[in-house]
């Protein structure tokens, strides 16, 4: 753990992410109001002691909505990246291990996927399906695995010629064993680092979709749709856009810092210092 806490940047990444986790888990206890309670008497109130982040156009407490919104951001990030990592690692491992035609087919498929602007692909898919949080997570996951595939494939290709892989192969280790015991564990570092960095971009994509009204549907709150509501009042109710914007920025930054820190931590050469 020493390495994680030694670097102040990594440490702040950990603190940010732990804070977001804490908020997401304890949102019902932390929020002063019901996030969906409409109070016509307190529309568009600026931040004050009773409403930390003011109220929105329907008189709902922005602070409470923000706390509940963190759950969506977190969930979308983790599930979408989980799907992308599993698909990406699987295809990348097969391409990098077997090479030849299989590799060519998988990589050309990756090229095709990459040539489609992801955001518009997601928009198109969402347009056909009912926009719900689960659909969003699945669609983001299904359209963002290509980076992981390329990475795992490249890692496998370079590891393939290492002497310990040759040694295991000469000794008769099966393909499955070679992949699961020798190649995957040694490619884990970049996979984990890109996954954590990928969460950041998934959070951004979800915010973008919700902002366009195709993401999380009202009355459920997410940072993205709070931002959308805010755009109508941006000239006289700055708090509606500022706080969700800041929250997204800080969370994305937190994941990025954590990702960088993990890169150092997962180097096996540091194993002793960790004990």
């Amino acid at each position: 753990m020493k390495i994680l806490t030694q670097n102040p940047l990594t440490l702040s990444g950990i603190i940010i992410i732990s804070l977001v986790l804490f908020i997401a888990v304890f949102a019902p206890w932390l929020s002063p109001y019901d996030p969906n309670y409409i109070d016509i008497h307190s529309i568009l109130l600026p931040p004050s002691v009773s409403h930390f982040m003011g109220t929105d156009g329907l008189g709902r407490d922005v602070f409470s909505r923000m706390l509940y919104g963190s759950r969506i951001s977190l969930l979308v990030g983790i599930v979408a990246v989980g799907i992308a990592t599993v698909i990406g690692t699987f295809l990348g491992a097969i391409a990098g291990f077997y090479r030849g035609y299989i590799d060519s087919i998988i990589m050309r498929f990756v090229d095709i996927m990459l040539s489609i602007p992801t955001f518009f692909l997601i928009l198109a898919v969402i347009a056909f399906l009912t926009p719900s949080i689960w659909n969003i997570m699945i669609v983001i996951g299904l359209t963002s695995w290509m980076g992981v595939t390329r990475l795992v494939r490249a890692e496998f290709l370079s590891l393939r010629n290492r002497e310990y892989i040759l040694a295991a192969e000469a000794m008769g280790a099966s393909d499955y064993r070679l992949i699961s015991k020798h190649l995957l564990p040694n490619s884990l570092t970049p996979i984990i680092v890109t996954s954590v960095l990928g969460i950041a971009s998934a959070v951004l994509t979800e915010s973008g979709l919700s902002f366009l009204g195709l993401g999380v549907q009202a009355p459920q709150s997410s940072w993205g749709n709070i931002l959308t509501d805010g755009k109508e009042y941006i000239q006289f109710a700055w708090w509606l856009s500022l706080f969700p914007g800041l929250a997204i920025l800080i969370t994305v930054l937190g994941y990025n810092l954590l990702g960088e820190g993990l890169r150092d931590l997962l180097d096996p050469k540091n194993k002793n210092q960790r004990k």
Partner: protein
Amino acid sequence: MILSIKGLSVTYQSDDGLIFAVDDIDLSLQEKETLAIVGESGSGKTQSMLSIIGLLPENAQIKGEAFFNNKLLFNQSNNHAEEFRGNEIGMIFQDPMTSLNPYLTIEEQLGLVLKKHLPDEDHGKIILEALNNVKIPDAASKMNQYPHELSGGMRQRVMIASVLMLKPKILIADEPTTALDVTVQAQILALIKDLKDQIDTSIIFITHDLGVVAGISDRVVVMEKGKIVEEGAPEAIYHAPKHPYTQKLIASIPRVDEKNLHHQDAFPNKSIDADNISMEYRIKKGWWSFDTLKAVRNVSCELGQGEILGVVGESGCGKSTLAKSLATMIYPTKGKLKIFGQEANIGNQSLKKITQKEVQMIFQDPVSSMNPRMNIESILSEPLWTHSPNLDKASVREKVISALDRVGLDSSALFRYPHEFSGGQCQRIVIARALMLKPKVIICDEPVSSLDVSIRKQVLELLLTIRKEINASLLFISHDLSVVRQVCDNVMVMYLGQVVEQANVNELFDSPKHPYTKALIAAVPIPDPNIQKQIELKLMEGDPPSPINLPSGCSFADRCAFKNDQCKSEQILTRVDSSLVACIRAREIN
């Protein structure tokens, strides 16, 4: 005195306290002297020289002082080393490929140096002269070539030229021949020997190989763990070393000119029998066309039960491809290969199962031969689990511990990771892994090349004892002829995928028959200044041709001193005494 160093220490701050890379050394260099600094990895030989040219990393702390021609190079508070770098003190490094910028032609590279130090002179002329001085053939056309178009030896010549064209007073050469093949190494050593007499430059030659400097040094300094342990004339150091470390170092060098006394000749049971096998690769040339690379050509060899067969040759001669085919990792494209009496081909998967158990491999770099994320117990037990998955845990651990014990390590190693061991210990663990299944054949691909000289001997002895214990056959691949001489029973010499000579070890080294073998053996430096200084090297010129689109006839003919017109079209295998020689004139020239 052109250089004097007093009380030099180089230290690094680490988590475990201060590390002394160089520990209080005094050193001096006379004008026109060639000084050899000899030591193993971590002895501080490179660190001490980097301090002189001011190229130490920023976190290094220097103590002591150094003077160049009575001018201050550095002391505690001032560091003027940079002002002398290049024009007064030049340095060349081990790997000439990485020392040259791949994007610049030779003329452009060297021009950059001149632009800084001699901006007003005719650069083309200076460069051409410098290239001619290091005996680069056809220097004018080489000026416009890129580094990748030159061979390793030529690149190192270019590096030497780039330093010498500024006429520095000191040339520091850090392992300049270590990355080169033996015959190329001999060419570079001969060049340095010539240069010594022609120019007014003192040379500091850093090396781990006592043989290399025996013939060219005026004085030898031996370093160990940052300290100078012995200093003196080469005759004194080589023949009457005083310090125990020097004695150990000298004793551990295998000699190519000493008979191998424990070799065996006859091995009645054959483990492997290769009959005229070839291995060809197709290399993509364009979208639809291929070139054929012949990595191994018409090789016939036999490996008897308990035999150690040496395979010798320079880089790219097909040694490793041959080894892979004997482990059935690849299959010959022509010819018949029989392993344990069964024919090896892609259809024979039952043989593959057998070889996976009975043929084990040991590679050059022990650290990268082990999965860095597995501990020693998992690494050593892997072969057992693979071949007998039903073993119980306790008996596996017992076997692992006994294997560790056999290679001289104890059970405290079980839960540690490869990077926690030294290179020598790692190679022991790799050997232990190869022994787990009690194989009949062990293929050793340069097993000691990456180890320090003093550790090599122990590892080799370990290999030999173990071979005796389990009566395994060893295929011993090496470019180091001295090691091969002391270890192997029979030897085959390969050149461009072909076996050019095959004989028992003493026959081959005492009376080599093929012109290539002769040149190869003559090029090995002998760690004895009396012998090495007298040897007038008959150098082999040029470089091997590309293995793609080989010329007809004898592929060595272009470089051969004995060639005639017939060699270009014909090549036959002849038996001379007990050696098999692939040379049409073998009988005439011997």
